[in-house]
Structure formats: structure tokens, C-alpha cells
């Protein structure tokens, strides 16, 4: 009880121990659900955009319940930028790879020469690859939009 009182006394204005604890418990499950939505896009409603937005929302929840510095400690700006670039690169790289292996641009069945999965299997798996790329890019851009707009470009405590 005393520990709780000490921790409550340390909180700044507008921060609540209940909300912080709830967000701390929920964020791993939100991220797990986001990954599920990305990966399970073939068989249920979902896909790269939706899952990426859910993954980004977990960091937004952290930045709202604690402050923006805390969420930037968990995923630094450099890592965020690398993930965003990597996502766009996965998408365009897959498309260019298809063209290099003799098919049309974005015709995944041409990748059969690289790993023999069958042309139809590659068309299914190629969709999976680009969904992962889209998910990474969308997550990174959503988090970056929130950080920049929420802190008016100063990247400090934020909202």
C-alpha cells in the first residue's frame, strides 16, 4: 500500500497509475493481435494495412498513458525509420525481383525459379510477403505521424 502511495505521489499531472498499469498489461496483447491480423490476412478479414495500424496504435497508447519519451525509449526513432524503409523496400524489392527472374513486374509466379513452390503457391506466398512489407511501413508511418504531430515537432514529452 505504501509503495503504491509513493508511486502515485511521483506521477506528474494527468498521469494515472490505473491507466498506466492497464496499458502496460494490454500492449503485448495488442501487438500480438496486430501480428495475427497481418499474418492471417489470407483466411480472415485483415491484412497489412489493418495490422499495421493496430501495431502502431499500441505505441500510441503507450505515448498517451506514459509520455512520448517513454514510447521513444521502447522504439527509438532510428529503428522506426529503418522499419518504415524496410517495409517499402520489401514491397518494391519483391516486385523488382519478379521482373529480374523473367516474369512481369509484380508477377509473383516468376519467383518459382528461385525457390520451387509452384507458380500458384508463389502467388499465395508473394501476397504474404508484400503484406508483411505493407504492415511494417504502415506501423512506422503511423507512429511517426503521431510523434511529430503530438509534440509539435519537438519530440519531447508530447501530449
Amino acid at each position, binding site marked *: 500500500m505504501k509503495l503504491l502511495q509513493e508511486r502515485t505521489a511521483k506521477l506528474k499531472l494527468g498521469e494515472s497509475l490505473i491507466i498506466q498499469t492497464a496499458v502496460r498489461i494490454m500492449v503485448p496483447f495488442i501487438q500480438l493481435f496486430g501480428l495475427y491480423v497481418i499474418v492471417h490476412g489470407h483466411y480472415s478479414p485483415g491484412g497489412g494495412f489493418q495490422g499495421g495500424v493496430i501495431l502502431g496504435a499500441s505505441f500510441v497508447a503507450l505515448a498517451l498513458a506514459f509520455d512520448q519519451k517513454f514510447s521513444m525509449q521502447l522504439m527509438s526513432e532510428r529503428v522506426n525509420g529503418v522499419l518504415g524503409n524496410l517495409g517499402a523496400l520489401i514491397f518494391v524489392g519483391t516486385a523488382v525481383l519478379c521482373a529480374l527472374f523473367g516474369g512481369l513486374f509484380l508477377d509473383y509466379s516468376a519467383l518459382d525459379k528461385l525457390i520451387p513452390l509452384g507458380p500458384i503457391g508463389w502467388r499465395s506466398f508473394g501476397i504474404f510477403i508484400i503484406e508483411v*512489407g505493407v504492415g511494417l*511501413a504502415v506501423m512506422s508511418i503511423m507512429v511517426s505521424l503521431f510523434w511529430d504531430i503530438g509534440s509539435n515537432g519537438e519530440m519531447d514529452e508530447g501530449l
Partner: protein
Amino acid sequence: MKALAFVATLVTGAILLYGTMDFPAWGDPQAPAATHLSNYYIENAVAETHVPNLVTAVLGDYRGYDTMFETVVIYCAGLAVVSVLRRKKT
């Protein structure tokens, strides 16, 4: 000024409502939107891509260009926000 805006809004709405007179009824399976291209997707997408979710199949495979340049669009939006707002040199 506000009255002018209100009148312009009403006129636009009336023109659009007049345009909906020629639209097919809601939920009509024989509507033009449902008779040309989409039947090909519904009938052949599963056999050609082995993806049961037709929306994902069309988004990722048949309309890959669309999705690719859309990723480029949100990437550019992120770059634009950073370059418009960022003040501190990091």
C-alpha cells in the same frame, strides 16, 4: 457569405440527388458494377492464387500496382510531416 455557401451546398446536393435517379437499386445483383469485372475475380481468384479472402487476393495480386503506389503515398506523407514540422536537429 454563409448564406451563399448554404445555397451552393443545397444546389450541389440537388444535382447529386437528381443523378442518383439513374442509379441501380440498392443490392441489385444485376447492377453494372456487379456484372463486368468482379465476376472474374470471384470465380477465378481462388483457383489462381489459392487465397480464400478475395479482398486480399485482389489487393495483393491483381491490383499490386495500386497497393504499391499507395505504400509510396503513405511513405511520402510520413516524410512530408517530418520535414514540415521537425524543429530540433537530432
